[in-house]
């Protein structure tokens, strides 16, 4: 069952990456499928927890560099069929039936998605019609690599914390932060694809999500959000002369971090209060 969860984790990311590569209607379809497979992953995770089975978020690296969208879609369909075959090890009948049904539909749709040429790996480092300076382009490049990984890391950490707490308030806060990080990851990933530098976020180090000191994690997280705000501010200023759109985007992300900080402060206060009561 742990192997099944790992395979599902990999297909979730591959579908997300395919979404960045696609255009038009296909893009939204692939993002929606990616969201569905992420939910499969979380349900499998819950099964593992309920059964007391040890698991982690390790996975293999996922090769995504293709010239044609059809190539990655064929690989995704192949992996989904492998998952379907592995479902035999899952003891939750309702979950198996749900995933099998989804896989049947997803692979059917994938087979009918119109092929297109992929430019997400052409290293152009051009962002739309913006004529960014070399310095701004370099700053944006580094930011996107750092932050796309960071958002993936946050999704996985909050997901792990959420899966291992029974506290409704904390579950709500972690879910908000997961949703917010999904928006950021999708935004940054799309920008990377548009600039021809798309890459899958690297595997997360176990000790980052298998957290033993939640208080310290939340404190560190607040400080990291403050640093992220600074990065967004710097980037907004660096691209401000060349692109109002990009500058406004980074200002928006910067302001969103304020709410994350507030949520994490409240989560910290709540966590400390419930632990003091024990």
């Amino acid at each position, binding site marked *: 069952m742990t192997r099944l969860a790992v395979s599902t984790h990999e297909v979730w990311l591959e579908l997300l990456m395919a979404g960045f590569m696609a255009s038009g209607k296909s893009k939204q379809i692939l993002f929606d499928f990616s969201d569905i497979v992420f939910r499969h992953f979380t349900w499998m995770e819950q099964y593992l927890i309920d059964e007391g089975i040890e698991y982690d978020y*390790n996975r*293999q*690296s996922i*090769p995504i*560099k293709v010239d044609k969208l059809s190539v990655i879609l064929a690989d995704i369909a192949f992996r989904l069929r492998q998952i379907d075959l592995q479902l035999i090890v899952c003891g939750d009948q309702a979950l198996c039936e749900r995933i099998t049904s989804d896989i049947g539909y997803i692979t059917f749709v994938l087979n009918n998605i119109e092929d297109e040429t992929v430019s997400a*790996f052409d*290293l152009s*480092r051009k962002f739309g019609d913006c004529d960014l300076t070399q310095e701004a382009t*370099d700053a944006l*490049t*580094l930011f996107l*690599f*750092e932050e796309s*990984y960071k958002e993936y890391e946050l999704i996985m950490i909050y997901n792990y914390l959420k899966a291992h707490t029974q506290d409704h308030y904390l579950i709500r806060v972690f879910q908000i932060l997961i949703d917010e990080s999904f928006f950021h990851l999708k935004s940054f990933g799309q920008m990377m694809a548009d600039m021809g*530098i*798309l*890459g*899958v976020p*690297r*595997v997360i*180090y176990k*000790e*980052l999500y298998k957290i033993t000191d939640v208080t*310290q994690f939340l*404190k*560190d997280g607040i*400080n*990291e959000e*403050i*640093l992220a705000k*600074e990065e967004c501010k710097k980037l907004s200023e660096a691209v401000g002369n060349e692109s109002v759109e990009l500058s406004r985007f980074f200002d928006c992300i910067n302001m969103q971090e304020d709410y994350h900080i507030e949520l994490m402060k409240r989560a910290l206060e709540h966590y400390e209060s419930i632990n003091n009561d024990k």
Partner: protein
Amino acid sequence: MNFDSVLLEHMMEPKNYGELESHNSEGIGKNPENGEKVIVFLDVKGSDPTIEDISFQAIGCMTTVTAGSIITSEAKGLTFSRAQDLIAATLGILDDVPPEEAACSEMVVLALKAAMDTYMERRKDFEFPVISYKIENSCYPQNNTPVGDLKDD
């Protein structure tokens, strides 16, 4: 960072990233300033110890991951003697680089050295613990202090 196509490829798809399934040694390079670290896994074979396979994982920035990708690619297939040359040459180059830029690569090189030293110790004592080395370069530009609290080491 000078973003040529080779560097971008390493950033998009870091080579040798993740825990090596079959390894007989590992080592850690760490930055005591901020809790960042690199762990290198080795699969060593032969009487003249040779790095048959290598991988790394990092808690660190993109520069560290890129350095890890490049250095582990260089080290794969080398005998320990040649790998020591690689370590010495890399540390030599880093001497001429500003400390805040050198810190990430130094962490990777020290993790490789730690993994090789761990292997040599384990030839004598199978249960020898994983060796860990601390970097000397500072990740923060001089006259600049880090923002926020530091993570525990």
